[in-house]
């Protein structure tokens, strides 16, 4: 069966998200684009195994993620390149009062272990549900939840943000409802 024009259009549409996910995983532009390229080739070859009506984006993310880890195994962890390590060693300080800039955040994100980084990206940025993320990462929903939570705590530590969401929706409503809630 030939690859349909619709499938091709869907692949094209998915490229920006795939690149963003690949960048988040590899932290390296060239490697990210190689990953996306591999993913597109594999998706094209395996298009018959994609079940219509299911989530194409999740299917593509799964392929990309598998490709990332298999490349990483082949290369033996040189994926974390020297640039990445340099950035990771830099101290991160919020630049203005509580307002961190994107560079600080990026540096903090790089310090997370891959499994935590991918989990928090999938849930907090790519818009997947915990169930979908668990499927993409081939693990239990509970595992994703704990990775996300560890990632969040770690980011808060690195960026010196107090545990804002730990105690309630936000500072204002906890002031309003604060003492009455027992």
């Amino acid at each position, binding site marked *: 069966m030939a690859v349909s024009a619709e499938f091709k259009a869907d692949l*094209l549409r998915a490229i920006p998200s795939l*690149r963003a996910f690949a960048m988040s995983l590899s932290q390296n532009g060239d490697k990210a*684009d190689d990953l996306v390229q591999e993913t*597109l*080739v594999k998706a094209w070859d395996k298009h018959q195994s994609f079940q219509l009506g299911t989530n194409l984006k999740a299917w593509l993310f799964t392929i990309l993620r598998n490709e990332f880890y298999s490349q990483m195994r082949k290369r033996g962890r040189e994926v974390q390149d020297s640039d990445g390590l340099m950035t990771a060693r830099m101290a991160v300080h919020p630049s203005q009062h509580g307002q961190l800039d994107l560079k600080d955040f990026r540096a903090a994100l790089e310090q997370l272990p891959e499994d935590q980084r991918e989990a928090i990206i999938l849930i907090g940025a790519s818009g997947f549900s915990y169930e979908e993320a668990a499927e993409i990462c081939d693990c239990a929903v509970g595992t994703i939840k704990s990775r996300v*939570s560890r990632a969040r705590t770690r980011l808060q530590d690195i960026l010196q943000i107090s545990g*804002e969401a730990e105690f309630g929706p936000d500072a204002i409503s906890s002031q309003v409802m604060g003492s009455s809630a027992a």
Partner: protein
Amino acid sequence: MTKKASVADTATPKRAGTDPLGANTEIGRKLKQYYDDLVSDEIPDRFASLLAQLEDARPQSKKD
């Protein structure tokens, strides 16, 4: 007030308030900003040409 149309003030998350990565948390906001920045990156032409190549190379492959 600057009009920035950020995720924070336009989209109302389904679980507003209880979502630990929601738009009312610093981490949640930064995460989305980081990702949106990547998503809006310009796409190199190599991907469109790759798909065109794949289409030409295997128009009717694998009929089992």
